[in-house]
């Protein structure tokens, strides 16, 4: 299990959703929902702290794998993430993704925090920083209007180059 104390938050994204904590929790943790807003990927999670966690391609292959660090229904869902499905990324250290759900007036505040255990270059963080707003904007749309938007997106080329360089030099071992 990851030594959580070594991880620092690098990217935080907050959105307010006109929905209940129950609906937001369901959207985060059920494949039926993630397929709609997470670029077609399906979550497959063992619903308990310490359980296995996967995000799968539509054909079932593993895209992301990890362990559940915190499973507190309606409040907090936290997992380690290893991007297994893309060869360049598979050798990077795992990160931690945490979702926090709080009531905020008549809406729900959803906070996504991506944390890393090493001095990760901004060029690599740029990948998540472009992806999360698309994913979480679509999550909000799915809950509020019942459908996501088609958004065109590819990992930034500079990011892939930076990942290759990091994997070659392994700065996290220093």
């Amino acid at each position, binding site marked *: 299990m990851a030594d959580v104390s070594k991880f620092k938050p690098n990217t935080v994204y907050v959105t307010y959703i006109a929905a209940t904590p129950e609906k937001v929790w369901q959207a985060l943790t059920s494949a039926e929902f993630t397929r709609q807003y997470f670029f077609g990927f399906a979550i497959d999670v063992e619903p308990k702290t310490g359980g296995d966690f996967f995000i799968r391609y539509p054909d079932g292959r593993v895209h992301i794998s990890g362990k559940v660090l915190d499973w507190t229904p309606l409040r907090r869902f936290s997992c380690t993430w290893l991007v297994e499905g893309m060869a360049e990324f598979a050798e990077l250290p795992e990160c931690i993704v945490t979702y926090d759900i709080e009531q905020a007036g008549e809406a729900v505040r959803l906070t996504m925090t991506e944390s890393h255990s090493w001095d990760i270059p901004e060029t690599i963080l740029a990948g998540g920083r472009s992806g999360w707003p698309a994913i979480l*904007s679509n999550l909000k749309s799915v809950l509020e209007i019942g459908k996501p938007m088609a958004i065109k997106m590819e990992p930034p080329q500079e990011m892939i180059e930076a990942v290759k360089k990091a994997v070659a030099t392994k700065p996290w071992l220093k």
Partner: protein
Amino acid sequence: MSKPSFVYVTYIRSTPEKVWEALTTQEFTRKYWFGASLRSEWKVGSDWKIEFDDGRIADTGKIVEFDPPKRLVIGNWQNQFRPEVKAEGFSTCTIELEVTGEAVKLTITHVAQGPKFIEAVSGGWPKIMSNLKSLLETGHVAMEMKV
């Protein structure tokens, strides 16, 4: 060392023209800006302000770039109601709209002189933009409450 900044991106099922109107029409801003509205003549060089419904001024600035429906830059943006934030001086906010697939990608880049301003807008922009997105997509804001 770069200046303190905050970037927020949201995707809205709408057109750039509608999002632009929502950003630059006083009556529209009033619906989603938590008891305040934006006032300006909306041309390069004109004054710009955020005014609470009770007449107090929240923030002031000037329109630096006005390129509908793509790019709006507000310069000399200064908080006027929290002395410790006001003391940090001017910030610059760039708002860009871009069509991507079925969505409008709205990017806010706010660059300030100090951390207190960035802390304030880091809390404010997600609320305001979440409300704007809901209003354009559903006809209703996500939250009515005032800040």
